[in-house]
């Protein structure tokens, strides 16, 4: 975290963004309390950002405003300095623990603890108490005590803190889940990685994964930040990358690098939404679509071959929507017309039975093979019913009633990482709609109603869960489901079933 003061200035600057105020650097893990999302970041007093849906974020002061004295406690200041960077956040029992970097002149730094019982600044119980320094570096040792990452081991409930930056090692200490302080303050911290920062752990299927950020930060579009990882069978390591190099020796399998118009990803944080839906938070050093500032992002977390993989939020476009259960494609229930028009069975020129099989234009009679134009709704919709039409599934054959345009629904809000979408038959305004019976219909037009707004979350295997924002007269969350080979419906999401898994493929 070789960051400069200019970055702190960016954080308090107005941000012009489609998703509110996502401008921030070194975000903490995103934590949900009572349906609202909270994240803290680097900056004077540790800025707070809050979101009601995980998509649109707003600023809400700083953590230190609720700390007695409005700044780190005296012991933290003595061990480190008066900067406030890169916090992390976890719930433990009925408390929340915030760990934050309080560097002086690096590598002299401390990691301080704040203790609270609610994240909601509007709550009468809202306050943060100084828990003092948890770990620190004296400016000489091979450590720079910044960038805390807190992790609860799901196998036994133990709590762990990783920290460190480029001045030496990434280190690990065990915490007391009740107090948030070190469980064994006299034990030597364990070195688990080097040449990195923004460390944090996650666990899955018997593996502990250590995610760290490599490269340089704080230089806008010239930042080489990238997230890398290793894994171990024990929480204490050794953490090896995909070819066996220890993260203590500079190893690290790439998790996410720059891409698209987003440069310099760093500061991974797990956001587990339950039911098998996992996402991760991070910041990009430079979002070229937002003036090159540093921004928060939330993306799907996938798993492949025993490693986490950065997924992609669905983007607007035209797709076939294929069921992972059946391989059949969602379509409007109208009689399809073959692409290029009806013709006999083709491609068997010379076969004795060709004529009997229908013959005709498709056989290849020696003439030049002309491209068959793609089919769109304008070509074939003359006889489509004007009103609502059922939805069904069929083998995908590139027909117009099988092509869907997914577009951001304006001013409709969203969910962690993404806005709501409208899903329409390509080239029309006919909109996929949830009915009060928990079924599906294609309405003749998009109205913006909640039953026409769709949430599309990428799942661990790369498929997507598709859910209406609301089902009329129902409070139960339902997902698009393949009830049969040819029949879609809405049903309760089951993480262990392919029924509610869908693929969005380019048509």
């Amino acid at each position, binding site marked *: 975290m070789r960051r400069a003061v200019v970055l702190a200035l960016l954080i308090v600057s107005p941000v012009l963004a489609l998703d509110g105020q996502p401008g921030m650097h070194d975000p903490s893990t995103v934590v949900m309390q009572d349906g609202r999302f909270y994240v803290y970041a680097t900056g004077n007093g540790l800025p707070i950002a809050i979101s009601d849906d995980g998509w649109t974020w707003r600023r809400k002061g700083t953590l230190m405003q609720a700390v007695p004295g409005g700044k780190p406690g005296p012991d933290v200041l003595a061990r480190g300095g008066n900067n406030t960077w890169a916090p992390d956040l976890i719930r433990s029992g009925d408390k929340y623990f915030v760990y934050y970097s309080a560097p002086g002149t690096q590598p002299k730094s401390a990691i301080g603890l704040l203790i609270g019982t609610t994240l909601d600044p509007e709550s009468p119980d809202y306050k943060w108490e100084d828990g003092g320094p948890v770990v620190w570096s004296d400016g000489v040792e091979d450590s720079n005590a910044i960038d805390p990452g807190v992790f609860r081991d799901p196998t036994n409930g133990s709590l762990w803190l990783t920290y460190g930056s480029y001045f030496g090692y990434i280190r690990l200490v065990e915490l007391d889940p009740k107090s948030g302080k070190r469980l064994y303050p006299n034990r030597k911290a364990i070195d688990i990685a080097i040449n990195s920062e923004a460390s944090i752990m996650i666990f899955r299927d018997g593996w502990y994964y250590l995610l760290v950020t490599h490269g340089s930060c704080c230089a806008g579009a010239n930042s080489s930040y990238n997230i890398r990882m290793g894994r171990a069978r024990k929480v204490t390591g050794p953490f090896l990358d995909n070819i066996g190099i220890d993260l203590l020796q500079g190893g690290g399998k790439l998790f996410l690098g720059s891409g698209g118009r987003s440069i310099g990803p760093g500061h991974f944080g797990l956001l587990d939404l339950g039911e098998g839906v996992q996402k991760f938070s991070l910041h990009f050093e430079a979002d070229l679509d937002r003036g090159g500032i540093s921004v928060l992002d939330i993306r799907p977390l996938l798993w492949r071959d025993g490693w986490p993989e950065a997924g992609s939020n669905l983007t607007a476009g035209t797709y076939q929507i294929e069921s992972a259960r059946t391989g059949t494609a969602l379509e409007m*229930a*109208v*009689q399809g017309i073959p692409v290029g028009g009806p013709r006999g069975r083709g491609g068997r020129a010379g076969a004795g039975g060709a004529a009997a099989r229908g013959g005709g234009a498709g056989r290849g009679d020696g003439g030049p093979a002309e491209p068959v134009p793609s089919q769109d709704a304008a070509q074939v919709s003359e006889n489509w019913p004007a009103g609502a039409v059922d939805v069904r599934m*069929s083998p995908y054959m590139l027909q117009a009633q099988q092509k869907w345009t997914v577009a951001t629904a304006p001013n409709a809000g969203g969910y962690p990482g993404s806005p709501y979408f409208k899903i329409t038959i390509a080239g029309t305004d006919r909109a996929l709609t949830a009915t009060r*019976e*928990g*079924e599906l219909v294609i309405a003749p037009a998009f109205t913006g109603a909640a039953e026409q707004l769709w949430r599309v979350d990428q799942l661990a295997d790369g498929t997507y869960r598709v859910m209406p924002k609301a089902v009329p007269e129902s409070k139960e969350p339902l997902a698009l489901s393949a*009830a*049969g*080979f*040819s*029949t879609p*419906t809405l049903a309760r999401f089951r993480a262990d079933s392919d*029924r509610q898994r869908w693929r969005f493929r380019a048509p």
Partner: protein
Amino acid sequence: MTVYRTILASLAILSVLVCRAATATAPDAEGFLQRWMILEPIGVAGQLTDGAVQALVKTAHFPDQFTVVPRDGDRVTVGGAELAWHTVDTARYNVNLYHFAYGLKKPTSNVLFWIVTVVESPREMIGVRLAIGSNAASVWWVNGAEVIGIYNDRQTVIDDGVSKRLTLKKGQNVIRAAVVNAGGATDFCARFLDADDRPIRGITVALPQL
């Protein structure tokens, strides 16, 4: 039934189609309905598109075609030809209509089969689904309401077409279907599923006695 027994005796391949038992029968372990009344095939054009099949099944082929619950041996006249209803039990999940028609020395291609069964439910069951598969196109009704249509040339796949959530009333529920075949094999299967896609238990098939 006598006619059909003769057919069975002459065709070893029909071992999966057996004569009707005397009592009500439960679906098999996976919920498939295994007892049906089937009308001998009606010769048709064999067009399988949505529009063609819908037009065909909405055509009046014989009196009370959407309401009749036939008995084994009942006869109807269609286009001047007399056709009989047969009770068929299958030992499998599906009913092989090709074997049924072939055994009767009836055409198997470009044909329409009308099929009926009666499901006895011990109580009202809300939110269940009729799940069917057919070779080829088929349209299905439950207690007179059209609930599923699947079209085009296709093979029988378990739970291919699934109805929207419906209610089985306490007592008798009439399941009716029209299966259209253009050529080759032809068969169908059907079962009821609960809200969790599990086969419905507790129902029986209770076709009228002779």
